[in-house]
């Protein structure tokens, strides 16, 4: 219904626009002249579809026909504007003429003149000295996701990205070049229209430019927070000229790329018997029971349910649409855009069971209004207002619980419902309900997020002071709030006894019915930003100077859900001053110095400000006189940069320089405060001041957190050597960068201080993890990373076919140089010298062949072993395989290599675009209830089809020491089921990320409908994947497959421009 209203809205908008245009023309008809003429190119060939409009007047204008002829009504002294894609704009001031013939020139679109958005404004590519990548926004548009981050992997050299879940509304994580820290946040700084904002709130159609700043020279000016790289996004603004309307409608059909496939009930039961028998235990199912199961004679006790089929649809249908208007006159220009995105979840919804939607749906609405006003000749005011609303829906238990059950429920565990209508469940816990009940009978969860962003930008030319001087002041104010309402209920649930008594089922209730209850919550924040820039540009002959001074401050305050900690209500403020000076000689030699001096409230006032200088230089070899005439070389530039940037994001911790003092209360083993019968905490650690038989007990006080006053910025030293080149009239072009980064002063807790330091500490084991309290923080870690990124484009025209081939690659490797960690006599046990998040485990040598093999091998200390169990390497040679033999194996979960390549071709009205994306140098362990078959020992955990049918070790049948999976066991198997190279999987993959086929309707046809351009398109994403890993989608990097898989989508759509 919403879709319907929206579409009607679109249609109404257009219709009202028509009527308005008609009235206008009729009123002014008296004074109008009819101008006719012909538009040609330099070769005197007629140009079809050129737009002719009247400057500073509303209306759609006119278009040239097949013969290049046009006719338009205009008044005297008005200016006619001729615009055509790929050609320079022409203007003509009308006087007495009735016929105006125009010749248009093709615009010079060579790479040299390409404009690059940088930290301090636009610059020509030729003048750039830092490592900056400009992303072709068009290429991000085919991605069906609402999140722009999803489209980045493999498109942008220097960006590493992965999509962890395909649930509608989930967003990808991405990072620039390398993860160089293990302490603080490793995510890049994203600036939208100059201020830190969420990239995923923007409709990609609203984006004008997308730029990635990678090295120190480009980011030092951001001082704070530039260390992880910066993404600059500028949104579209109106251009002087006729109104430009863009509309796009797209419908998607999405299905899962790969859903884990599970064994059927009979296979599952036979395998669980095998697991028992092979370990000399009694089988779980008698022959008769297996037979009952095979024949499907008892759907209550021995059902055979494919839970994936029960809960998952074959496909979901989604759509998105967007509409934008832009245009304007000499004094004001506007851009107005809106979009609607509706993604349907893949859960089957039973309408009969609830009159609300329980599917994992996601909807996003965005709007944007950008107005530029010339207040005076030299003053430009830009105002931007934008907002978004994200709405998410999920079943009451949540998607996480559903996937836990989907992977946990074996086909024979329980039926959908018992034959008497009762609802089964394994236990009373929410994530133990069967997936169908979870998906349809647990209520629903609504989450929504509102965002409003306001940007004010005042630009004053100060030519009256000195030519080339400009002043820009910027102010931004953003608010955001998240709200959720969870309406939860669950039915009365039952389980049955394992055996029929007298042929009857025996039921036990596992949980009583819970009527729908509601919980809700919200959180919110507001941010404001203020900046000013003073810019100066001057050219003296061949000498070009530039300088920028910049001041910035920003603050972020959480406005809801603050709790009782005073720290939470205090704004997070940043203040900085930065500058830049550059010089180039004849566009040939460039030098650039810039710095940031930034302060963060997270640090003590003596350590608050950091100074981050950077220097860079470039040599444009192609401009040298001896090469200037070389026709084959359009551009060749060598760049080098060297500088520092900082990072103040310390994770969740605020004000580490302050100490916390607490009253000592009795605590239990989970560090929860013990309360007395009245619910009051019990003080301890104090002194009884009272006389005999009276009470005056004063509880003790102590440091809850010791102050760390010396904590300061995490500093990255970055070096970058880059080459920009373009040969044979831009036929071959590319960029290649080598980079090196040394991150110092990584923020972390000093967990391994000796007791002799006198600092009190408490190590509490919570959920099998040691939590340390009261140790101070310090800047102690050090990580080095190096790598390269680059891209190469090749363009060729063969007859009517325009062909582009392109590829890009990012590779990085990091190494921890220093880290506060426990010492070990074995070097390999330290994290130092290894990658950040390096996978670790035992080295598997295959499976034990026989008992002789077990006797002749080092003793494995994890549990009893039998032939067919995993044999490990005794790394330290002490004759015993134990925890000290755990070494670094494989790479990291997040890929260290991301690449993409693709081609575009266009022929007449057709265009084709294919893009492949791949990742390498990543590995992860697989584990969990499905991989570690029958690990629970209680029937929980489904068996993957792939593993059931594999070449696994089978007693008497396949006693191959190199079998794919070890001897089965029922219940925990501490020897086999632990992290080792046996379970390590290569996460590399290559996939056809998108295939985009478009057809632009012939101009002469669409022009009649006043349409400039209409394109029909078909897009397929994630069409196929090559990977060594076959259990689930490799891109997710999931260890247990318990995640909403990624989608394969097919979409058709139309985009219209008029």
């Amino acid at each position, binding site marked *: 219904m919403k879709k319907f209203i929206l579409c009607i809205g679109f*249609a109404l908008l257009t219709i009202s626009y028509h009527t308005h245009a008609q009235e206008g023309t009729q009123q002014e008809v008296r004074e109008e002249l009819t101008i006719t003429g012909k538009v040609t190119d330099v070769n005197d060939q007629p140009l079809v579809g050129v737009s002719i409009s009247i400057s500073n007047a509303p209306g759609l204008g006119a278009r040239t026909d097949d013969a290049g002829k046009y006719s338009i009504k205009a008044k005297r002294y008005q200016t006619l504007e001729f615009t055509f894609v790929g050609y320079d704009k022409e203007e003509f001031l009308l006087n007495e003429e009735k016929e105006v013939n125009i010749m248009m020139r093709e615009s010079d679109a060579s790479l040299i003149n390409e404009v690059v958005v940088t930290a301090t404004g636009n610059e020509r590519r030729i003048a750039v000295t830092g490592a900056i990548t400009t992303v072709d926004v068009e290429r991000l548009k085919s991605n069906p996701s609402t999140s722009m981050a999803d489209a980045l992997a493999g498109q942008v050299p220097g960006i590493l990205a992965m999509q962890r879940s395909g649930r509608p509304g989930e967003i990808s994580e991405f990072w620039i070049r390398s993860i160089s820290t293990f302490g603080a946040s490793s995510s890049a700084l994203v600036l939208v229209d100059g201020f830190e904002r969420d990239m995923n709130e923007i409709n990609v159609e609203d984006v004008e430019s997308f730029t990635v700043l990678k090295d120190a020279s480009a980011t030092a000016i951001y001082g704070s927070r530039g260390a992880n790289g910066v993404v600059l996004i500028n949104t579209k603004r109106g251009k002087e000229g006729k109104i430009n309307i863009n509309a796009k409608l797209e419908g998607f059909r999405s299905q899962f790329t790969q859903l884990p496939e599970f064994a059927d009930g009979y296979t599952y039961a036979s395998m669980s018997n095998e697991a028992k028998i092979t370990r000399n235990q009694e089988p779980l199912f008698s022959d008769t029971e297996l*037979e009952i199961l095979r*024949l*499907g004679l008892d759907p209550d006790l021995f059902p055979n349910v494919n839970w994936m089929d029960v809960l998952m649809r074959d496909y979901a249908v989604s759509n998105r649409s967007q509409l934008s208007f832009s245009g304007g006159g000499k004094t004001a220009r506007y851009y107005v855009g809106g979009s609607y995105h509706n993604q349907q979840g893949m859960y089957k919804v039973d309408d009969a069971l609830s009159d609300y939607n329980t599917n994992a749906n996601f909807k996003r609405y965005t709007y944007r209004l950008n107005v530029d006003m010339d207040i005076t000749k030299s003053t430009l005011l830009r105002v931007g207002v934008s907002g978004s609303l994200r709405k998410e829906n999920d079943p009451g238990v949540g998607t996480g619980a559903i996937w836990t059950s989907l992977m946990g429920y074996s086909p024979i565990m329980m039926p959908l419902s018992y034959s008497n209508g009762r609802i089964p469940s394994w236990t009373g816990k929410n994530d133990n309900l069967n997936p169908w009940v979870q998906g349809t009978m647990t209520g629903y969860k609504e989450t929504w997020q509102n965002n409003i962003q306001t940007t004010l930008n005042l630009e004053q030319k100060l030519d009256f002071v000195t030519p080339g001087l400009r002043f820009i002041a910027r102010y931004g104010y953003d608010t955001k709030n998240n709200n959720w309402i969870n309406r939860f209920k669950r039915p009365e649930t039952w389980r049955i006894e*394992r055996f029929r008594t007298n042929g009857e089922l025996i039921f036990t209730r596992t949980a009583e019915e819970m009527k729908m209850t509601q919980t809700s919550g919200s959180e919110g924040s507001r941010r404001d930003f203020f900046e000013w820039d003073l810019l100066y540009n001057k050219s003296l002959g061949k000498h070009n100077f530039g300088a920028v001074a910049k001041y910035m401050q920003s603050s972020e305050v959480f406005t809801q859900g603050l709790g009782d900690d005073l720290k939470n209500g205090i704004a997070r403020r940043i203040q900085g001053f930065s500058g830049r000076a550059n010089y180039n000689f004849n566009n040939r030699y460039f030098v650039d110095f810039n710095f940031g001096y930034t302060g963060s409230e997270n640090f003590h006032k003596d350590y608050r400000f950091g100074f981050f200088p950077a220097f860079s230089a470039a040599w444009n070899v192609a401009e040298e006189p001896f090469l200037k005439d070389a026709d084959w070389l359009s551009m060749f530039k060598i760049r080098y940069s060297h500088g520092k940037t900082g990072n103040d994001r310390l994770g969740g911790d605020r004000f580490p320089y302050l100490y916390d003092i607490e009253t000592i209360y009795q605590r239990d083993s989970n560090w929860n405060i013990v309360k007395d019968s009245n619910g009051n905490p019990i003080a301890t650690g104090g002194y009884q001041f009272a006389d005999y038989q009276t009470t005056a007990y004063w509880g003790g006080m102590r440091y809850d957190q010791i102050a760390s006053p010396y904590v300061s910025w995490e500093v990255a030293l970055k070096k970058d050597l880059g080459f920009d080149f373009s040969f044979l009239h831009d036929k071959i072009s590319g960029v290649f960068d080598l980079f090196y980064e040394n991150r110092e002063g990584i923020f972390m807790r000093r967990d391994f201080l000796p007791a002799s330091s006198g600092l009190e500490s408490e190590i509490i084991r919570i959920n099998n993890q040691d939590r340390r309290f009261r140790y101070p923080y310090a800047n102690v870690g050090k990580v080095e990373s190096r790598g390269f990124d680059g891209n190469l484009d090749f363009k060729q025209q063969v007859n009517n076919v325009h062909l582009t081939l392109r590829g890009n690659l990012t590779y990085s490797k990091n190494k921890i140089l220093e880290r506060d960690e426990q010492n070990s006599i074995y070097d390999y046990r330290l994290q130092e010298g290894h990658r950040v998040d390096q996978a670790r485990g035992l080295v598997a040598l295959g499976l034990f062949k026989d008992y002789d093999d077990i006797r002749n091998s080092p003793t494995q200390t994890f549990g009893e072993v039998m032939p067919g169990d995993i044999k490990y390497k005794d790394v330290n040679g002490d004759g015993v395989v134990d925890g000290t033999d755990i070494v670094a194996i494989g790479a990291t979960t997040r890929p260290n290599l991301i690449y993409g390549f693709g081609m575009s071709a266009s022929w007449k009205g057709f265009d084709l675009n294919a893009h492949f994306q791949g990742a390498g140098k990543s590995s992860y362990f697989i584990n969990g209830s499905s991989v570690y078959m029958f690990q629970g020992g209680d029937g929980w955990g489904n068996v993957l089809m792939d593993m059931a049918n594999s070449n696994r070790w089978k007693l008497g049948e396949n006693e191959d020491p190199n079998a794919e999976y070890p001897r089965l066991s029922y219940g925990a198997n501490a020897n086999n089921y632990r992290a080792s190279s046996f379970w390590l999987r290569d996460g590399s993959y290559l996939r056809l990320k998108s295939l985009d086929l478009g057809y632009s309707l012939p101009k002469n046809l669409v022009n009649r409908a006043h349409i400039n351009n209409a394109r029909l398109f078909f897009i397929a994403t994630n069409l196929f994947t090559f990977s060594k890993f076959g259990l689930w989608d490799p891109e997710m990097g999931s260890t247990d497959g318990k995640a909403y898989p990624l989608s394969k989508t097919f979409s058709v759509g139309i985009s219209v421009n008029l």
Partner: protein
Amino acid sequence: MKVEKISKRWRSFHAIWLSMVMLCFVQCKESSDGGDEKPVAYDPGKPVSVTGFLPKGGGAGSNLVVYGDNFGNDVSRIKVMIGGKIAKTVSVKGNALYCIVPSEAFDGDVNVYILDEAGEEELAGGEAPEVFAYERKWVVSDLVGKYYEVGTQFEEKEGPFDDCGAFKNMIWFTFDPKNPNQFYIAAESSNARVVDLETRYVSYFRTPGIGRKTVILWRPDGDRDLLTAENHASDTRNAFYTFSRSSNFTQSQVINQVARGVNGAAVHPINGELYYSLYRVGVVYRYDLETGTNKVAFSNPFQSTAVFIVIHPSGDYAYITNYERSYILKSEYDHVNKIFRTPYPVAGLANSNGWSDGVGTSARLNRPVQGVFVKNPDYEEQGGDQYDYYFCDKENHAIRKLTPQGRVSTYAGRGNNGTNGYANGDLRLEARFNQPTAIAFDETRNCFYVGEQGNWIIRKISLEGE
């Protein structure tokens, strides 16, 4: 005129808009799920044949799959007779059916009949070519108590077997030595009850003023009055009470002996002294009922554990069950000094609970409670100790058996290779218990009664049909 022209020009434009609007409605119909193919109904034109069955033999209550042809798909229209007895049919699917072997199906011939729509008249039938090898065996069944699917609906009352509610907290059974039709149930803080097997009636055994009871026993002398102990946590209160048979167990008299935390107690069958254990201090005392003298018999190896005492009918030794420590000790009787000696372990390993059969300390138990000595006729030839000890292994949900040689095996429970539950049938293949705690052997009827703290009912282990 002009307007018309313009609108003509817009027509194609509108068409495009319309098509874009239409695109929003692109929705595809879900295909409905096929599911399994429905088996065909009985075809009167074809004969009904029975080709075989699985398993080939077994006892009453076992699952049986019968193969054949043209069985139809309606359970109400099928009748299976095994050994001339009607077998309960669970489901039927064309060429196979699933039924339960009935009791006393001694002949073992398997016949399948198709009935008319009313389910009365036999229309057709077939007989299996082979005979089902029916065995008569020991099985678990229900004795008394209502099984509550929903625990909160629990009721407890006096009444006949089919209307007496459920039994919570049962911990100790004991037969009245003078009335083999009645046994008494100690049920901690719940009401003690009396089960009459002849009248099939359950009544309360009222003990006003006495709180938690974990044991009921009988005085050795005279009228064989009833003796019970209050398991309290006071160092200054008396614990033992006598209920006189002459008053029909309504009049009680306290014995002047302070005792705290009495869980187990037993009377020596020959010499008549009372032994009782104290929880906190871990000591077993010997109390002379005649003289009222009280002294330490021996110290239990552990303190803070419930210790249950069962004395061999000959009086030669006693099994000392350490509940929290999951093992059983044996204490030999010093006939000269008339006192039990310091015990030694015979089954299970202290503080290491688990479920494994084996000899002596290599076996594993998990919170054993009451046990009972049962004469084994097989031992008659070899002489020596004639009794096996059957005991409730509560957290293993099984009845275990300890032979005079110290071999521990699992006698009943944990059917289908599982743990707890509620299922009747074959002792080891099918039956399941849930926290069996109390056990008694009925020598007149040759069967066991087992009280479960998990299922709140009393089960019976007997030869099928008895």
